[in-house]
């Protein structure tokens, strides 16, 4: 770098990086970071823009429901649709089969009909819900310009063949790897295509590792090997223009190692199933039939900054709007009356008494 050798003050304006233009699917974020979309517009908004390049995202699975697959599918499809490269690894014998389940972007004319169900009581706007509507209006206005960066995906429409058969996808089955060094080498080769330098970024990569757990043959020191794999993946990703997402079942790890994995992540999410037996929830929630689970945001990536991100809410309900579009919604306390038709949810814990209209505190 041709930096001046003697700097008299501690501050110097960096004129060379005046908003470089990047390839599709990338946008500049604060502190010199560049984001790519998670494939779920609501999640991008929650995370302050998307996943920053060079970060490691980890998702803690719930053994009772495969919601992490929803996150993975959208993440992978988003990359393919925008011409980004993808490396996908899973424990399945033939990971390529999973690519057939990737969703296609929703047709743009559907966007208009995808407005939140017009609330019958538009006139009855109560003050404490005002904020929710205000934020929503802003989002809709920006929707049109965003297709270069992120898409709404239609989970019922499979991704077109030509995206899946392109040369930009590599698949690895963990079963084929005698030990993790094979996977590590594949990742290294993949990531070498996107080295990070100071110029504009032509092309970005995505790595999706599903259900990362021990290879078939368990051996001693395995837990440390997995951890050192994650560490080397993270440092490779740091020095490249890519994002890696790893989903894993926390129940298969000892508590201490689970904490180590959580500390490794830049962005840490977890998904939870909705308990089926909780029929009381169905009485207290509207839109319950659309709610498939919960998403928790434990940690948001802090690259190039020391200020933590404190979200207003960390738990969101995962809903399938019209059974097609993945949306994330804040959980709200139901009004005391509990019988109105507006769409408010309540968190799973406070529904111990089941009679409608009779809430005990």
């Amino acid at each position: 770098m041709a930096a001046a050798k003697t700097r008299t003050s501690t501050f110097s304006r960096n004129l060379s990086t005046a908003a470089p233009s990047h390839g599709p699917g990338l946008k500049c974020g604060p502190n010199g970071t560049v984001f790519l979309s998670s494939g779920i517009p609501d999640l991008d908004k929650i995370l302050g823009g998307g996943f920053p390049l060079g970060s490691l995202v980890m998702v803690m699975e719930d053994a009772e429901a495969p919601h992490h697959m929803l996150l993975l599918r959208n993440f992978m499809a988003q990359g393919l649709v925008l011409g980004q490269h993808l490396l996908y690894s899973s424990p399945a014998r033939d990971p390529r089969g999973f690519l057939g389940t990737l969703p296609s972007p929703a047709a743009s004319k559907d966007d208009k009909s995808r407005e939140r169900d017009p609330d019958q009581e538009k006139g009855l706007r109560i003050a404490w819900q005002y904020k929710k509507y205000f934020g929503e209006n802003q989002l809709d206005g920006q929707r049109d310009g965003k297709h270069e960066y992120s898409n709404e995906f239609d989970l019922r429409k499979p991704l077109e063949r030509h995206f899946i058969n392109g040369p930009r996808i590599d698949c690895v089955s963990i079963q084929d790897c005698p030990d993790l060094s094979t996977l590590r080498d594949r990742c290294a080769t993949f990531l070498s295509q996107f080295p990070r330098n100071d110029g504009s970024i032509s092309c970005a990569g995505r790595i999706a590792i599903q259900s990362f757990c021990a290879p078939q043959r368990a051996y001693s020191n395995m837990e440390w090997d997995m951890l050192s794999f994650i560490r080397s993946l993270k440092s490779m990703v740091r020095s490249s223009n890519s994002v890696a997402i790893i989903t894993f079942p926390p129940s298969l790890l000892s508590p201490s190692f689970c904490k180590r994995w959580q500390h490794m992540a830049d962005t840490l999410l977890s998904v939870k199933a909705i308990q089926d037996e909780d029929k009381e929830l169905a009485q207290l929630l509207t839109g319950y039939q659309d709610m498939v689970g919960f998403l928790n945001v434990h940690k948001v990536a802090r690259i190039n900054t020391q200020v933590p991100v404190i979200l207003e809410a960390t738990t969101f309900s995962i809903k399938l709007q019209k059974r097609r579009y993945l949306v994330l919604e804040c959980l709200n306390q139901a009004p005391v009356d509990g019988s109105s038709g507006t769409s408010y949810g309540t968190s799973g814990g406070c529904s111990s008494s089941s009679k409608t209209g009779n809430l005990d505190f």
Partner: protein
Amino acid sequence: MNQRSSNLLDEALGLDEVIEPWPLRGQVVAIEDQVETSGSFVLHHLLKRSLSPNSSNVTIFIAFSQPFSHYDRILRKLGCNLVSQRDNSRFFFFDMLKLQCPDGDEGITPEGGLIALYGKIHKTISALPEISWKNVSIIIDDLSLMEVAANGSSDYVLDFLHYCRTLTSEFDCSLITLNHEDIYSSEDRPTFFIQMEYLADILIKAEPLATGLATDVHGQLTVSNKGRNKVSNFHFKVKENVVECFYPGRS
């Protein structure tokens, strides 16, 4: 302002008055944090203090966690230019992100890798003019990743820390480390962690508030200063250019 708001933390550490000679010389400072509340900001603050223009301190930074660019940007907002400090030989950055010590197959044992690191540190310090020996800080970010780099051989990591401890007596260096307390609290025998706490002269714990997350208060710090026989507890809020510390109930 800047000086005033960090005062609670500086006070607890003895950094509020004179910082030349370096008040933490010969001492081991252990910072502990959790997933919910990161303690890296304490590290950044100490780094900034040690590279202050009022002191002639030299800092050796052993990074397992983030690359140089990350710290550079953060410290720049705090008012410290790491690039020029590096050029002036006041700041030495050892990038250990890629250090991996496999189990002896490729000739680099975990022990070997850490011994080499120690050798590098020793060499760097010895190469400094003797007058600087009294003012060296070694910062390690972070210890749990050093264990991973050593493939789980926490004994070797402990040995490494003991070697560094000898540096604090031989050269009067200070050793500042960051580790994650919640990893070890779930272990059956957290020997490594307990040893580290025992070694430390000053223990700084960053924890979330008992009441949970808040935008105005990011957590609480508990500073146990064995030398001064003092325990301080206060709340903090981390900003880009400063850390605000205040007693509960005040701002």
